[in-house]
């Protein structure tokens, strides 16, 4: 399946970086030199040294360890939220396209309603009312984001639903399950995969924004966005601690999209990837 020599360089870079991030996230307790909340220095923002490779943060915690634990939280939440938004959005969007009628109208207007409220404001209101824990955070992010996926998948599926092969399946007497998952989904996959790369990054950014505003991950845990917030005051003094998590977000964004593009290239072939 994966032939390294024929994989483009960009995709390889993306795969390597993404794998590194995932490994860091999974193995955090074993590879991090210090604990997540462990204060290792009396001085805040200690510069980079052989003891603390990335220096320390505003409270004197080891920044590298915080970054590794942060990867865990960031990826965990972003992956689950994206998974939720895609399964919810795609299934509802496809169903709306296939069933049509009042089901489609009701769902579409509901989504319009949700989308008419700015996501951030909606998120702020909901999260400030609900108890602040990971589950609510993932649910809120997933559901808010699923409106975008819904619109995309409905639009794609409406076009596919009028193709002759879908009509042939309906004439055969196939149920909606087969039509949605076997006829429409494989053909809608390309736009969805490209959207997936983008949406995942939006989830990371949205989480960062929420954390920055104090409604996301609660201290002492922190995702990368939260770490930017903790260390932002240092920038005035020329301390790079806030830039490191920011750079990590950027690197993750790019590498995930490189992988998504590559997957997209491989899946658009209608000849099963053969010559």
């Amino acid at each position, binding site marked *: 399946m994966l032939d390294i020599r*024929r994989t483009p360089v960009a995709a390889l870079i993306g795969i390597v970086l993404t794998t590194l991030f995932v490994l860091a996230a999974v193995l955090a307790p074993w590879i991090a030199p210090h604990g997540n909340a462990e204060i290792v220095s009396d001085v805040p923002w200690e510069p980079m040294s052989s003891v603390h490779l990335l220096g320390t943060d505003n409270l004197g915690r080891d920044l590298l360890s915080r970054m590794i634990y942060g990867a865990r939280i960031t990826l965990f939440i972003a992956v689950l939220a994206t998974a939720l938004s895609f399964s919810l959005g795609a299934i509802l969007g496809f169903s709306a396209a296939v069933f049509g009628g009042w089901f489609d109208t009701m769902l579409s207007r509901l989504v319009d309603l949700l989308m008419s409220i700015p996501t951030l404001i909606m998120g702020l209101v909901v999260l400030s009312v609900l108890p602040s824990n990971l589950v609510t955070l993932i649910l809120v992010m997933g559901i808010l984001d699923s409106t975008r996926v819904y619109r995309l998948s409905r639009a794609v599926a409406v076009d596919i639903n009028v*193709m*002759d*092969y879908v*009509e*042939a*399946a*309906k*004439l*055969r*007497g*196939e149920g909606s399950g087969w039509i949605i998952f*076997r*006829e429409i989904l*494989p*053909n809608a996959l390309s736009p969805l995969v490209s959207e997936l790369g983008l949406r995942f990054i939006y989830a990371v950014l949205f989480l960062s924004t929420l954390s920055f505003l104090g409604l996301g991950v609660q201290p002492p845990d922190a995702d990368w966005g939260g770490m930017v917030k903790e260390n932002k005051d240092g920038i005035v003094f020329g301390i790079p601690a806030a830039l490191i998590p920011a750079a990590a977000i950027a690197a993750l964004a790019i590498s995930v999209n490189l992988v998504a593009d590559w997957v997209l290239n491989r899946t658009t*072939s*209608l*000849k*099963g*990837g*053969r*010559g």
Partner: protein
Amino acid sequence: MADSKANAGRLLDIRNLRIEATVYPPGEAPKTITLVHDVSLTLEKGKVLGLIGESGAGKSTIGLSSMGYGRGGVRITGGEVILNGRDILKGGKEGLRKLRGREVCYVAQSAAAAFNPAHRLMDQVVEATLLHGTATRAEAEKRAVALFKKLSLPNPETIGERFPHQVSGGQLQRVMTAMALCSEPDLIVFDEPTTALDVTTQIDVLAAIKDAIRDTHVAALYITHDLAVVAQVADEIMVLRHGRLVEWGGTRQIIKEPRQEYTNALVSVHEIEHNEQQPGTTPMLSVKNVTAAYGGGLVKVLKNVSVDIYPGQTLAVVGESGSGKSTLARAITGLLPPEQGSVFFDGRTLGNRLADRPKEDLRQLQMIYQMADVAMNPRQTVGTIIGRPLEFYFGIRGRERDKRVAELLDQIEMGKGFIDRYPAELSGGQKQRVCIARSLAAKPKLIICDEVTSALDPLVAHGILKLLLNLQQIEKVAYLFITHDLATVKSIADSIAVMYRGEVVRYGSKSKVLAPPFDAYTDLLLSSVPEMEIGWLEKAIAGRRMESAGN
């Protein structure tokens, strides 16, 4: 200069033309393929050369090379294209810009797709003339109106004020011919100008084009896959195959005394022996007084239609586009529930809506579509496509399913190697065969064939029709055959229903329907089918009793 004097009457001279393109197969290094191999042709002023061949024969590619154009990344890599005494390939971009729309004009296959829907017809017709500065706007418009008149368009004075969607397909094709003639070019390239039209409309457009060519003394390259059509307009015919010249000669010689085997196959392709079967006693499917409409009853497309199909026989439904023949199929399959009337199948009434029908009824009634490419899910392999009805209706799975799929592939004359292929890896004819196998897999009693051969090349279509007839012999399946092609009808039907504007105007056994006396519409339809005979067009136009719908 002696050479140019000898060629005084010669307008176009293509020498050893070689055209290549680079293809990018996924997962392989890009490679260069040759589309046209050393083809040479000459065309004199005021003459018409017909280029014919199957799809992929390179006829459009050669036609477009006369204006130095390569469609979709195609490159002219060798040879000379000499137009009016100079090699246009050496003129550079500036030279081509001066030439296109002035010396050479192009008439595309789909006029509906070739016109800009946002501009009025007149603006588009005179555009090239104005750009080249050969006439003022008033002169160009006067010329355009004269051309509209010559092409017998209705309201020639005002039709230019309309938008493309406000005129019919046949009229639009004639407007495009006017557009090509407006800048008074020396050469026009007609690329399948009547292929997308109904037979009854085709004859009008054909006659209009022929008159216009004669009156304006323009030379033309006429590209088509229909030999009977090209025989009406061309002085000479060039037969192409796989980018190579097969035969080139006068029209009479090509159609009467073809020298090459391939040309002979093209000329004699339409004949299939089929003995008409007499209708049995009880029809298997009978449509009784069905009326159907779109848009909540606003647009009636079927009016009180009744037809019967007998077991193991073929009913052909003939008519032009918009006559309701596909709607009849939709009503029978339950995709469009009829407003009145009902459909009886095997002695029981079929549910009006698809959802009301039991699985068994759905299995008995299968359908094959016109466009095989979109009738198969591009993400499923041939094995899945053919195997699904087996799983779905009979619960056959695993190895036994694969065995049955292989048998079916055998029946449609395709080998086992195809089971893992995707539709994109099949040719047009193979795709249609797979669709046939998919419907056969359900072991149906009736297959509805909706224009199954009209998107295919004549030779391939011939093969498909033969296959369908053979399968009918073996499986005893009945066909409802929807088509606008009367040659097809003659080859396979047992009974015929002629439809016009949603009504069945003539219905009965084949011999009865195709024997005089005819009603006006059937007469029009029958007389509009091009015959491979020089001078047929003039005779047909003179002998018509009814104007076609396009006028």
